Structures are given as C-alpha cells and as structure tokens.
C-alpha cells in the first residue's frame, strides 16, 4: 500500500511532465522556422522528462523497491546529451543554409 501523499505527488509530476511534453510537440508544429522549432523539443525533454523521471523515482522509493538510482542517471545522461544533439542539429542546419524565418534579427555566420 502506497502512501496517499506519494500517490498525489506522482500523479501531479506525471501531469506536469505530460503537459510540458505536449507543449513541446505543439511548439514543433507551430513555430515558424527550423531554428525556433529546435527550442520546442529540447525544452520539453528537459522539464517534461525530468518531471516524469522524478515521479518514477518517487514511485519506486515509496513502493519499497529501493531508490531509483538508474532513473536519476537516465535524467543526468539526458541533460548531458540533449544540448549536444540540439547543437549538432543547429550547426548542420546552418551549414546547409536553412533559411531563418522572416524577421529574425542577425545572421548565422560563415566560417
């Protein structure tokens, strides 16, 4: 039997995580150009997946199966790899001259 407080916390974190992942997906569909679409998924993963992982940690701690160290490690790996993949995508887009949306200030540089 799990403590009700733990159940509420898990549900709340799952809802928050789901909401942010959904907003990230909406951002992917709605934002005007490639560079701004990059922001949607990288951000949704950071907070959305973070919240879902935290709920998983609480679930396994509360149900007495030991603290979920592997979930924490998954989160850490995600936080390390998400910026790198965003960086590589943006760099690749810059090299093949993906046009930024109209009204974007500044230019990607040429090197």
């Amino acid at each position, binding site marked *: 039997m799990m403590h009700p407080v733990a159940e509420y916390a898990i549900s709340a974190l799952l809802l928050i995580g789901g909401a942010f992942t959904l907003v990230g997906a909406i*951002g992917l569909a709605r934002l005007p150009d490639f560079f701004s679409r990059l922001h949607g998924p990288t951000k949704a993963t950071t907070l959305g997946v973070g919240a879902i992982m935290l709920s998983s940690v609480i679930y396994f701690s509360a149900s007495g199966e030991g603290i979920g160290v592997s979930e924490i490690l998954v989160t850490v790996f995600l936080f390390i790899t998400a*910026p790198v993949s965003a960086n590589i995508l943006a760099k690749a887009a810059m090299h093949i001259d993906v046009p930024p949306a109209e009204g974007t200030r500044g230019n990607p540089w040429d090197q």
Partner: protein
Amino acid sequence: MLDRLTFPQPWLSLSLFLIWQFLSEGVSGGSVVLGLVLAWAIPQLTQGFWPERPSLLKWWRMPGYLVHVLRDIVVASFEVAALILSARRPRSAFVVYPLELTDPLAITVLAGTISLTPGTVTVDVSDDHKSLLIHALDAESDEEVIHSIRNRYERRLLEMFE
C-alpha cells in the same frame, strides 16, 4: 604493453566505475570486472579528445551551479510554454556572444547550459574559440541576451575554472 594499463584520468575512471555499478542490477563480481574494463578502456579511447587536462579548480561550487541552472530551466520552461501557446509571433534572433572563458571544458559547459535553458540554443563556436553563436527564440535585444548569460552563468563558470 604494460604502460597502456594505466588510468590516464583517475577521476573519470572512478566516475565511470561507480556509474556502471549503479546501472547494473546490484554489485556483483561480473559488474566489478566489467566496470574496471570500462573505467580503463573509455579514458584510453577518448584520450585524444582531451589535449590538455581540464582545470576544474573549484569543483565544490559545481552543485550550487547545477541547482541554479535547474531553477532557471523550470522558470524559463514556463516562459517558453506561454510563448508557444500565445498567438504572438516570436522575435527570434541570432546573437554573437563574446566569450570571456578560455578553458575548452568551461566553454562546453557554458554552451550546454545555454542550450538547456529554454529560449536559447548554442549553434556554433567560432574557430578562434572567442565567441558563441546563439539562436534566441524570443529576445527583445541582443544586449539583453548577452547580459543575462554573462551574469547568470559565465561569471560563475569563470570563478570555477579560472
């Protein structure tokens, strides 16, 4: 042959070994052996990517920095979510950020932090390692972006690394 059997970066090896123990289902003979192999092989294989030793001088400040970044991720995620759901068109901009940091690892950490905090993504590092190209999703002015990164993150990294 035997001189290859060293741990060129003891701290990296130790963290790899510990992470492997946490990832395996309980510590056993097998996980210790495989952990030792990984702790030896990965630093050996990646040694070419670390031409000079990273100089993390004040590592005890790292947890404080991580908490600071985590708080910013949460706050800024709400801002980006509000922007995506509002009908307003984002004012995107490419911003060239002049770096004060010189240590390659510190620049990597800063670039990662910029990408993780919602609203900005690091696009590229200039060839002379003196500036970063950043894409900001919604920025009123370039100065504002540069100013907030300088004060929120680069100052702290400068204290830690140099």
